[in-house]
């Protein structure tokens, strides 16, 4: 499914002794038959039928299938489509935007330019100085303005010669052939819908890729080799096109053999498909990236909001792995063995405290591993599934009669219908009370499986009981805003009202007003922010004890039931 957060394209441009070049772009069009905007800048952009255009073009290269697939994914979303938008800019123009226009003073910092409804974001990276100092100087020489403000990473010509420099001079002949002073990985994004956080995420990815390429260039001239090969493809394509009627795109040539082009293509395809990517630059430097708003299906998500959510983890919470398959397969090979063990024992039925005991690690470690899984959208924070839980249909749940979810449910639980289950969950009640109305082909175990399945599909939300301390004659509720509410900080009038309740006066055989003492302990939680389960955990009491005392003092209490805002609000789906 296409998303507004997907990139429209990925680009690779360089500045070097031979000028500025857009060496690779993906997706691209196989033919150059498209109409460009021409000389008059006020002319309208010609809207063409992209699909037809493409089907006419010969599927000469092996990658055309792949390129058209990703492009059509982009086109699904709204108009004007991604390719159509990018079409209004020729490769030459893009070359200017990504390389020619970027003065050396703008190297090594965030690049963000918006043209109409396309936003370009990248990080122009100066090529590591040890390899091609000479060429950089040669390049900046013909730019009149540049020399005065040299970027900080440039070594000056009178820098003391180091061992590294002498090393580099031996292979400088090799590098100066490519003569690259700057390279630039750019993403094109849909400008109108995306948030600053998404732009920043793509910038970070561009920077990560640039750093990896830069490192590999320093280590084994990865960039120089690739630039040479990409230049080669461009020339080769030009030669072929000059001789043949059919024009060949240099970019499809590059995809056949150039590792960097294949890498960038993979990054783009991964992002469009999953919103995450994990690649190795030059089979060596690992680059991992996930677009948080995309994988959490929340356009407005920010890292801060996610962190805040993760910080709300409590020992009584549990973890629901979202994928029924084994998550461990997705982990990098060098991942921590504790994490693998943790994933093996995680169950939606047990809370973190139990998991910590079972795994034999501290709760803090469990929290950080759980937070990690939540961050990568592999798991979700839940309250462990148990018989006393009350579930209701989530407001965003799809109740469509004909849908894949219904079919999937029928395959998974052969003798049951999802629609009836949803209907049963429409009336909130504790899980243990739901069994009786069902036919005999369902038991607690099966119901639990169903609940877990529905939670994964976000069809259900859990309701919790919250209690407010609101006596009848109270005129304002400011005391409920007191973060450290307790018996002593309550207004006198309210204390008097509570004391007047019969249960408060009841004295046990050892002369203590035990009910009142217990109630006093509960008071900090009667602000409507703490649910019954958390109270039970914090006070270490049984549910029955709590409900009894709440019932005895019910004339000053307002009891209500709603979802836990700490868990639920985060799952606002697009």
């Amino acid at each position, binding site marked *: 499914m296409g998303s507004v957060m997907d990139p429209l394209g990925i680009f690779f441009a360089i500045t070097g002794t031979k000028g500025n070049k857009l060496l690779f772009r993906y997706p691209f069009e196989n033919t150059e038959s498209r109409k460009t*905007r021409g*000389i008059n*800048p*006020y002319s309208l952009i010609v809207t063409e039928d992209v699909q037809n255009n493409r089907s006419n073009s010969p599927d000469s290269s092996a990658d055309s299938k792949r390129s058209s697939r990703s492009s059509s994914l982009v086109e699904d979303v709204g108009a004007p489509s991604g390719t159509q938008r990018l079409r209004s800019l020729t490769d030459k*123009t893009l070359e*200017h*935007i990504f390389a*020619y*226009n970027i*003065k050396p*003073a*703008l190297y090594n*910092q*965030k690049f*963000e*330019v*918006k*043209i*109409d409804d396309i936003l370009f974001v990248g990080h122009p990276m100066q090529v590591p100085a040890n390899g091609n100092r000479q060429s950089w100087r040669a390049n900046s020489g013909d730019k009149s*303005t540049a020399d005065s*403000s040299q970027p900080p990473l440039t070594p000056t010509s009178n820098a003391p010669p180091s061992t590294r420099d002498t090393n580099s001079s031996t292979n400088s002949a090799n590098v100066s052939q490519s003569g690259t002073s700057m390279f630039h990985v750019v993403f094109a994004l849909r400008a*109108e819908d995306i948030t*600053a956080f998404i732009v920043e995420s793509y910038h970070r990815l561009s920077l990560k890729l640039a750093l990896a390429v830069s490192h590999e260039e320093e280590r084994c001239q990865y960039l120089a080799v690739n630039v040479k090969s990409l230049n080669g493809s461009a020339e080769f394509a030009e030669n072929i096109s000059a001789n043949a009627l059919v024009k060949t795109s240099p970019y499809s040539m590059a995809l056949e053999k150039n590792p960097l082009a294949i890498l960038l293509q993979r990054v783009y395809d991964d992002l469009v498909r999953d919103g995450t990517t994990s690649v190795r630059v030059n089979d060596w430097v690992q680059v991992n990236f996930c677009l948080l708003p995309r994988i959490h299906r929340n356009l407005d998500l920010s890292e801060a909001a996610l962190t805040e959510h993760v910080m709300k983890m409590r020992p009584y919470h549990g973890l629901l792995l979202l994928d029924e398959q084994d998550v461990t397969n997705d982990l990098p090979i060098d991942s921590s063995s504790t994490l693998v063990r943790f994933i093996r024992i995680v169950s939606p039925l047990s809370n973190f405290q139990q998991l910590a005991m079972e795994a034999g690690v501290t709760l803090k470690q469990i929290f950080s591993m759980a937070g990690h899984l939540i961050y990568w959208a592999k798991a979700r924070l839940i309250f462990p599934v148990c018989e006393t839980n009350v579930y*209701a*249909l989530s*407001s965003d749940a*799809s*109740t*469509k*009669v*004909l849908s894949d979810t219904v079919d999937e449910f029928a395959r998974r639980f052969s003798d049951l*219908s999802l*629609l*009836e289950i*949803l*209907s049963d969950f*429409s*009336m*909130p009640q504790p899980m243990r009370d739901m069994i009786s109305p069902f036919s005999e082909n369902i038991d607690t175990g099966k119901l639990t499986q169903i609940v877990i399945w529905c939670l994964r599909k976000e069809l259900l939300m859990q309701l919790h009981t919250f209690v*407010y301390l*609101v*006596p*009848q*004659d*109270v005129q*304002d*509720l*400011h005391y409920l*805003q007191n973060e450290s509410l307790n018996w002593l900080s309550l207004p006198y009038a309210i204390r008097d009202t509570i004391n007047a309740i019969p249960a408060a006066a009841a004295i046990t055989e050892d002369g203590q007003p035990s009910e009142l003492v217990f109630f006093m302990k509960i008071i900090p939680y009667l602000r*409507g*922010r703490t649910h019954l389960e958390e109270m039970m955990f914090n006070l270490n009491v049984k549910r029955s004890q709590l409900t009894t005392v709440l019932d005895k003092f019910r004339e000053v209490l*307002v*009891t*209500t*039931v*709603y*979802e*836990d*805002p700490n868990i639920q*609000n985060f799952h606002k789906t697009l």
Partner: protein
Amino acid sequence: MPHWQYGKASDRCAHDAISPIGSILYSEFHNQFGPMITYEVPDKRFTNTGLFEQIASYIIPKPELMARQVTITSGNFRVVGYPIQIENNERKKYERNSFMFNLCFVFNIDAEVRPYEPVIKKLGDYLRTVEVETAFLSNEASKATLPVLMTKMLTDLNGLGRCSVEINLSNTLFLKVVPPDRGAGPVVHDYDVPVLLSDSSHGGLVGDLTTRQVVPLIDGVKNVHQISEEVDADPDLVKSCIQNLMFYAIVRVVPAFNTANVHRVTPGLQQFVCDPLLQQECIRTVARDSNDLPSLRDLMMLFGDMQIGVTVKSLLSRHSNIASKIDERKLCDFGVIHGFIRRVYKYPLYTRYNQATAKSATAIRMFNGTFHTDEIQQKLDLTVKDLDERIEQDQLICVCWK
């Protein structure tokens, strides 16, 4: 029918959420010096950074980027421009055969600039026209009036969100900053009931013909479809008119009221607890008699007991002692508008639904889980009772609440 209201409409026109303009630049391509900043108001804060040298190629760009919105973010600034190139024409010959300029707004790096983009485009196109017609920019005398105009734009757009600029005697330019979420307005359905949030604010709004007809009919009872029938206008027209009024926070839509409706309390109730003004407003709004006001506990009990499965009717009978003091319709509307409660709709699902059912002539074709009973009633013109009977008599129909 009196116009009853729910609190003050927040004045969206005072654009607090929109980032202010830092400065306004007028940049042009000088015959000898190339791209340069000719004027900057209010001071030279951008000029003095020297950043212009670095990004000049995005402000006075190559021809292919002319007449496009170009925004460049660099250093601590975000520069939004609309570069214009004018070729030689019959009135004017330029020394370099063309005249290039760009009137840019400069913002802080983290500013939201989208609201300003239409303004900048309009400004650029307008300046282009006056240049072609009267050589406004290439004539040194008239160009010198620019800083004054730019200063006025800066103060007015920042202060009021709108501005009118008299370029010369015969040309006046009107500019307005529009908040960005205009396009993605809330969806209005046929079955939604609009309510006025405030009586006073729509007085100032000179609406179009439909709006003027629609506003007097908003009484908190009629739904959009009924209003459109009454004014004899296309429902879509009325919907977009309501959307527009919602954008200016004059109107909100609520579900049609019926005692069989079900609401459910949400964590939004915390807002009620935390806001004494809201509590007082709620008490005043929902009371039937100003001498017999409900207490805070009464309201909390009512809101708190709104759960799935509890209709308004059963809620009132459960709290019969409070019920007499409360106008239940206002209570529900107030709760929905402020987000303490949300309406829970009933979705009839026909379990044997297939492609043939979809073509059926009876109500059953709508029992596919995408329509709730309010919508079905409105579309098929059924009463609540008829539809409920229809749903109950069929064993193959199950009901979901969400």
